[in-house]
């Protein structure tokens, strides 16, 4: 039996710089799997390889019975993988509702763009309904017609998540969902992740620097350093792992 999601021997170089070297990991269905490591460890590169923003030189990424490396970036969400962005990539000049509508892209049937038609009306009505439901769920309904760029930071993070959820993924990649948030907000994200994983049956892969969040929500943790996996295990195991303490916690936990 193959794993729900598996990365095998992934290798990615930019010019002379090796970002990820011979990296393998597996994610169990329904789990929250965190990927941690110091800055520049290659976490974002792994995410970008999964989203197909970059082409790894070797390895494979298997999900749902096929190799994601055979797909192009826009086919990834249809394969069942959604993602959020670390640096708040939003459609800043579009409204909150439009952002979520974009997230729904693959679930809206095709129609001719230049003309009114019953098919168009049906497709649009359904998309609108679904998007509004997602806004309701993420507490963003009040901002429906606000431009995303005009939202405050916290709401922008939330919108990023709402947009990713709109694609109805089975695996959700979260790139530093707590970055820039305050403690109280982090606990909100904390709750939200657990709720989502449960209610939607989501598998979540998480890159995060905020250790308390990682330790409280993750079922399993993989540690990357200089593009290589140095440890993997449950939060408790990782906390005790000597290499991790040396490479990561050692430098940052005390800072």
């Amino acid at each position, binding site marked *: 039996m193959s794993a729900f999601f598996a990365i095998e021997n992934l290798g990615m170089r930019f010019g002379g710089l090796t970002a990820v070297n011979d990296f393998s990991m597996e994610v169990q269905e329904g789990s929250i799997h965190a990927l941690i490591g110091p800055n520049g460890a290659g976490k974002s590169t792994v995410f970008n390889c999964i989203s197909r923003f970059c082409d790894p030189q070797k390895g494979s990424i298997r999900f749902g019975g096929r190799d994601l490396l055979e797909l192009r970036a826009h086919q990834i969400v249809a394969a069942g993988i959604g993602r959020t962005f*670390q640096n708040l990539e939003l459609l800043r000049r579009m409204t909150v509702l439009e952002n979520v*509508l974009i997230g729904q892209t693959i679930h809206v049937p095709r129609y001719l763009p230049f003309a009114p038609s019953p098919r168009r009306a049906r497709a649009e009505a359904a998309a609108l309904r679904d998007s509004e439901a997602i806004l309701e769920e993420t507490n963003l309904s009040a901002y429906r017609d606000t431009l995303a760029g005009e939202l405050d930071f916290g709401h922008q993070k939330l919108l990023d998540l709402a947009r990713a959820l709109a694609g109805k993924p089975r695996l959700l990649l979260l790139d530093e969902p707590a970055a820039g948030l305050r403690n109280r907000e982090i606990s909100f994200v904390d709750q939200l992740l657990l709720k989502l994983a449960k209610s939607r049956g989501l598998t979540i892969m998480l890159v995060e620097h905020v250790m308390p969040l990682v330790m409280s929500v993750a079922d399993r943790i993989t540690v990357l350093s200089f593009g290589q996996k140095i440890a993997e295990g449950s939060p408790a195991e990782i906390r005790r792992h000597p290499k991790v303490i040396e490479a990561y916690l050692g430098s940052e936990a005390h800072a």
Partner: protein
Amino acid sequence: MYGSLRASEFVGVLAILVAGFALPFMLPEYFLYTGNMLMTYAVLAIGLDLLIGWSGQFAFAHIAFFGIGIYGTAILESRLGVPYLLSALASALIAGGAGLLIGFPAARLKTVYLALATYAFAECAQWVFRTWDPVTGGSDGLRFNPPVIFGYETGTDGAAFPVVAIILALVVTATLYLAKSKLGRHMCAIRDSEHVASASGIDVRGIKVATFAISAVFASIAGSAYTLFQSFINADVLGASQLVTVLTMVVIGGSSSIAGVLLGVVVVGFLPEILRAMPHSLLVWQEFIYGAILVAAIVFMPQGLWGLFRQRIAARPRRHDRSARESPAVRPVPETSP
């Protein structure tokens, strides 16, 4: 947003049509000619805005497709006797095909590289128009007959005016529908963030290529409209300066909005007519003034004239904004560097 056109949006299109049929009875030919030119520019600018303002692709090849529209329609109609509408359609298809062809390599390029590659294409196209004597008449230019559409002859500005107005109205309507469609939103998404777009399942390259093709078709339609009231084409009018004029219209009016673009067309289009009427001692400053207006507009009106206008409307509080402020789900935090 999704939905069909609202009544108020129809009013705009209707106004164009009413003006198109009424004005020829009221205005002298000079105004009609200027009007025809402006409407042609409007179609051209709306098409360019699809690329620049909507899908965020800074591409300059537009004027080449305009040329394809003019030469295509003129040659098919005048020399080969193909009916006007068919010639226009064929030119639009040729331009669309060329747009696809350009679109594929262009979709790989970004920012200035895209701008330069497409600009180079436009220059190459102009060179072809100017040197391909047997087809385009080369540097002597090409004379063509006024088209006849179902027995209606369009030779004069007055006769052409309603037809050009219909063309503009159709293009505006199509663009309004496009704005509300899935494709239209996808273009905007690509403009705002290609990463979000492709992570949301939008085929970024596909949409870019499609935008190129649609924009090329619009430009070709503008070219076909041009043949309705002009009877002579020379490659000189397909050069960089015309391109800059159209770009200026889009930027000064306000990109990614049809009304902004139309406003820009009217303002920038009338500017030379106004400058021309200046006292002759000031006339030599024309080019300088034009440039100064351009720089000043960019510096002081980053959203264009339309943006300026909208800001004044937006200064009044909007209902949903107020309700939003009362129920924050997450408290605002200052942005910190990760």
